[in-house]
């Protein structure tokens, strides 16, 4: 038995992590070590991908509004105050050009590559083609700073803006 060979808990063993000892592990133990190693690596995503940079930032939210076409509709999203910081109240101003939606649009805030739960900003009409609402971008202890705002325009579709926030 490996337990006997290694001695009791706390006892020193010179070849504890050596190749010989690992070879002697029973299949279940080997499976456990493998799963544990893979899990730990995946559990610390920031070690593998320090800032979630796999997805490109397509909007400089600190400089001005994020703009995109949703089919033929021009959609602009302004976040203020600037710079856009996490953990503070933000005002989201959405501009929709052309034909106006039948219902109020809304924004879902989320982190790129990490599920943070549903964080919805409900918008209300402020003027013709302008909708406004408040929300908070929360801070992730992992240190990742890249977020996305998915704008949903009823009966038209959705458009996604990817940007970074300041901690």
């Amino acid at each position, binding site marked *: 038995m490996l337990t006997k060979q290694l001695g009791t808990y706390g006892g020193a063993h010179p070849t504890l992590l050596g190749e010989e000892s690992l070879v002697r592990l029973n299949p279940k133990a080997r499976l456990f070590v493998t799963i544990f190693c893979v899990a730990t690596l*995946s559990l610390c995503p920031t070690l593998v991908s320090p800032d979630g940079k796999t997805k490109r930032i397509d909007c400089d939210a600190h400089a001005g509004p994020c703009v995109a076409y949703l089919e033929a509709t021009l959609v602009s999203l302004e976040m203020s105050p600037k710079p856009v910081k996490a953990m503070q109240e933000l005002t989201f101003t959405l501009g929709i050009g052309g034909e106006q939606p039948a219902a109020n649009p809304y924004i879902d805030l989320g982190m790129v590559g990490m*599920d943070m*739960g549903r964080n919805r900003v409900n918008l209300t009409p402020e003027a013709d083609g302008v909708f406004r609402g408040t929300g908070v971008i929360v801070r992730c202890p992992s240190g990742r700073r890249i977020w996305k705002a998915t704008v949903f325009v009823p009966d038209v579709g959705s458009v996604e803006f990817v940007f970074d926030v300041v901690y």
Partner: protein
Amino acid sequence: MLSTETIYFVVLSAGFALGFGHCIGMCGPIVASLSLSMRGRKVLVPHLLYNAGRITTYGLLGGIMGVAGSFTRVVTEIASIQKGVMIFAGLLIIMLGLAMGGWIPLGRIFGEDCAPMGFLAREFGKMSETRSTVAFYPLGLLLGLLPCGPVYTALVAAARAGMEATHSLNGFIIGMSLMLCFGLGTVPALLLVAKLVDLRWLRSREIIYRISSVMMIAVGIYFVVRAIRY
């Protein structure tokens, strides 16, 4: 707008989904460390107590958010505490890893057989198994304060619900209920991690404990570094 009952269900299911998607990654190392440090003892009751403590803290935070009606105001107040808790969590994991690897004479911190070497070891040794099991509840209370993105998101929802409440008590109850639902949703995933890391089925555990202890120390250092930079 969603009805109150629908919001509770949404938050509960969000907690469940995030438990498997997010909490396993961010809180899994803590839960795994606690399970591993028990070295073969039954993990279910201690982890239920740990989760009960964590959910209690969530509920209280949700209630406060509901009364305040402002996420940012409350979070600003508790930011320094959260940083301290994150450092504590890291140091706890490091200590558990060192003790499990036999590098510090603490024996099983949450276990029953401490080597009586030194003051700390003697003090830990005085903790009976029952008392050490009960200790998981206050530990959960404390670690419920760990900064966590999905918890923040749920707290934002609690604060919003509080804003729409007719009076403070109503806001407190709604905020607390929302966070209790969220916390309950996260329990299955963390219990699963606790059970998966329970090694009683293994015949040759010592080498696993040694490898795990090294990994725990690494994860603990990662937590402390993250906390300092937070």
